[in-house]
């Protein structure tokens, strides 16, 4: 039974989307909502079943019946390891929650929203499960195109501009990926990860493979919004409808980083120069993103833009976990991915509640108006505490694992970046909670400067229906960590790494046992939590602080903030320039690694 699950995980949402497209016009408007939730839950069940079945060895499925002949791979295969299925399951769960949240939101043209979202889901499933490089590209493209269309869904001027920036930068990423595929095929003659791994092992110092890896990794990093490719994210997230932003931040952006993990471990691991570049350049990119995202988040008063920058920060930590190249780091990344998806999804849903109930998204403009929807305030505070590093839940588990892995790899200097990044993002959310729901932090003169464009979403759903998925996601984020030990994530990661991508076409190599290790810095959660509360209190209590302190701190921090604001100016030509700069960084790193 489980043998036929891999294609079903992709075929179910594809079929659902095509069906809705055919008959959507004729259906009353609740049916597409319910149908989409059912499809998402079915995919979730399929992924969970595959994860359970892949405990001993990954599930292998060859499409079209084209099993490999000797060492020649003729067709496309899906190889579903436990980690792949787990990530796919988290994505499906997020979609189900988002569909419940969006119940009745889109009641206009013919279920187009549900069609696009189901196609989005199918593409993500294919991306997680595939074992073929061009197939990865195809699902990457479907994901991108669905995202482009969904960003512009609201047809406001700023939505369109955000969608344009998003589309142009990510299209360049797609072209880079195609270039990488061309180089890979040229040198190895195959597109299957396993066969590619064998080719790389036969020629580990070949610069063509390094060039191909650069192009592929750059494309995935553009999707994953890492420095210096991150500029499109804030523009796109701020203007997309809230249910869509849930998926963007929770699933789409972290999948870029998961894709890099897949690419490295299943194909490019035998090349030492690529490993060096991962551990140096990509690790630095992750740390820089963690810092930049956190600092920029503090500056925002538009809640969704704030959350977008916090996504950059947390996904930077994901990249650090991958770039450490050891099972504990990867396990931390997996746990952190799950935790971040759940918490960030809940946060964007709360932003959607604010938009639909209070008719605004500007933190300062909404000050004190949150009294009537106080359960959302409680949820916002809890989410802020989790983001800020509270010592419960999946986020905490993940960050402890990543930190101990960094420590073991001799990069303990990740610690300040990690602490500062999470503290800043947590502080920003807690500050928003305090301001909107408790009325603290008056900023005289600022309240009149709310952005001119009136933003709102339809207020036609009952509050409890919108809060339900929020509560479920937050509860899972906390409880899932209690149910599983942190060793579960590490075990998943060890299996992921041990599967040699089918290079030997034999069964799974026995994963090395990863010893349980106490965290080297047990005070991290308290440090970042305390720091985030401190920063939030500082921002909220500005009117009570001595004038001299405020002037001094503003003067010290102003240049940094001005640079961040100026760089994220919304001009697409500048964004593309930074992409070229990022490619140059790769080139320099490779020359340094091999020279």
């Amino acid at each position, binding site marked *: 039974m489980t043998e036929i699950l891999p294609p079903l995980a992709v075929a179910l949402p*594809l079929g659902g989307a095509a069906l809705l497209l055919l008959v959507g016009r004729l259906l009353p408007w609740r049916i597409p909502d319910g149908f989409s939730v059912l499809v998402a839950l079915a995919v979730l069940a399929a992924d969970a079943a595959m994860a359970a079945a892949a405990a001993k060895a990954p599930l292998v499925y060859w499409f079209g019946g084209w099993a490999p002949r000797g060492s020649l791979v003729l067709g496309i295969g899906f190889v579903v390891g436990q980690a792949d299925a787990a990530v796919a399951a988290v994505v499906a769960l997020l979609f189900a929650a988002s569909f419940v949240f969006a119940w009745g939101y889109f009641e206009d*043209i013919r279920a187009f929203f549900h069609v696009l979202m189901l*196609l989005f889901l199918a593409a993500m499933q294919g991306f997680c499960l595939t074992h073929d490089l061009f197939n990865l590209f195809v699902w990457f493209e*479907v994901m991108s195109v669905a995202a482009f269309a969904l960003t512009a869904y609201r047809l406001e001027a700023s939505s369109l501009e955000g969608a344009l920036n998003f589309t142009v930068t990510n299209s360049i990423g797609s072209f880079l990926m195609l270039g990488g595929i061309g180089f890979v095929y040229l040198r190895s003659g195959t597109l299957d990860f396993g066969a590619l791994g064998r080719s790389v092992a036969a020629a580990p110092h070949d610069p063509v493979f390094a060039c191909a890896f650069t192009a592929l990794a750059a494309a995935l990093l553009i999707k994953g919004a890492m420095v210096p490719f991150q500029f499109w994210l804030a523009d796109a997230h701020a203007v997309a409808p809230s249910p869509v932003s849930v998926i963007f931040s929770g699933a789409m952006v972290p999948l870029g980083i998961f894709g890099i993990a897949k690419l490295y471990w299943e194909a490019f691991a035998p090349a030492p120069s690529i490993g060096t570049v991962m551990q140096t350049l990509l690790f630095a990119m992750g740390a820089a993103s963690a810092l930049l995202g956190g600092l920029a988040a503090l500056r925002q008063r538009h809640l969704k833009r704030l959350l977008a920058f916090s996504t950059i920060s947390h996904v930077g930590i994901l990249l650090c976990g991958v770039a450490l190249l050891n099972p504990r780091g990867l396990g931390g990344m997996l746990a952190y991915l799950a935790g971040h998806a759940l918490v960030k999804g809940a946060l964007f849903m709360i932003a959607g509640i604010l938009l639909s109930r209070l008719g605004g998204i500007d933190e300062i403009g909404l000050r004190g108006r949150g009294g009537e929807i106080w359960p959302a305030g409680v949820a916002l505070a809890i989410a802020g505490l989790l983001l800020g590093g509270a010592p419960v839940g999946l986020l905490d588990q993940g960050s402890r694992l990543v930190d101990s892995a960094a420590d073991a790899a001799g990069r303990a200097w990740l610690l300040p970046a990690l602490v500062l990044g999470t503290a800043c993002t947590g502080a920003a959310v807690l500050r928003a909670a305090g301001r909107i729901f408790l009325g603290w932090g008056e900023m005289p003169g600022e309240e009149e400067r709310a952005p001119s464009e009136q933003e709102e979403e339809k207020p036609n759903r009952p509050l409890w229906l919108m809060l339900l998925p929020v509560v479920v996601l937050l509860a899972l984020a906390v409880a899932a960590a209690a149910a599983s030990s942190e060793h579960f994530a590490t075990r998943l990661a060890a299996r992921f790494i041990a599967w040699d991508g089918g290079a030997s076409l034999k069964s799974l190599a026995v994963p090395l046992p990863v010893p349980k290790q106490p965290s080297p810095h047990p005070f991290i959660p308290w440090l970042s939590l305390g720091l985030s509360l401190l920063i939030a209190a500082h921002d909220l209590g500005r009117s009570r602080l001595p004038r001299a302190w405020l002037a001094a701190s503003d003067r010290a921090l102003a240049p940094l903030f001005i640079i961040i604001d100026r760089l994220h100016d919304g001009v697409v030509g500048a964004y593309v320039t930074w992409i070229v700069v990022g490619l140059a960084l790769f080139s320099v790193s490779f020359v340094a690694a091999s020279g």
Partner: protein
Amino acid sequence: MKRRARLVLAAVATLALVPGLGAAVAQLPRFGAHPLPYGEAINRVAPVERHVTNMVTAVNFDYRGLDTVGEEFMLLTAVTGALVLLRGRRGESVTDSAAEAPGRPIPQRSPALRLLCRCFAPVLLLFGLYVVLHAQLTPGGGFQGGAIIGSGTLLIYLGEDYRIWRRHMRAHLFDAMEAVGALLFLGAGIAPMIAGASFLQNILPLGRTGSLISGGLILIANAGVALAVTGGFVLLLLEFLEETRAAEPEDEA
């Protein structure tokens, strides 16, 4: 960032890229002199195993059929997205009067244009159909043929009045065509699974090499793709052309 700053930064970055790229390009194999095992194997086995003579179609619809499924649905996604963007505010109404740009009168269609279009449109549509049907034999396939048929309908627009053309090109028909094509292709993939084989495995009788009915499941997949591509392209053309009409007074705010 100012444009000058952008250019300077991009130039510096390009210079930094040169050593890495140079090292890679120096190691590339000689152009045209490095046969690759995957392609060679397909050229060798596909005519025998699938009774087709167009290797590209065999790769597209059989060996790497899942890629084409994804590509097909990507077309669906993009067309749906474009429909959302273009129909969104306008609704699904059809306007009769052409939009006028100031200072540019709308010329009448000349009889020569009408005659030529009436002669060539059927030829083009027939050619598109030929390309679709001969997918497994000669260069062509569902995508190529669908694009040709879609463009052929443009010839009809050129020769006829927009009102008449629009009344015959019913958007609902092409919406349905697109969805049916996608479902047909997906169904062609799932049906072998019900029979116990793999997704998109070619279990139908393969026919005689060189005849129109050969290739088994490739024919059905091809038909699905042709329907979906035709529907998609015509929908896009319809929506973009509708943008050239004058806006209704109650349309845009």
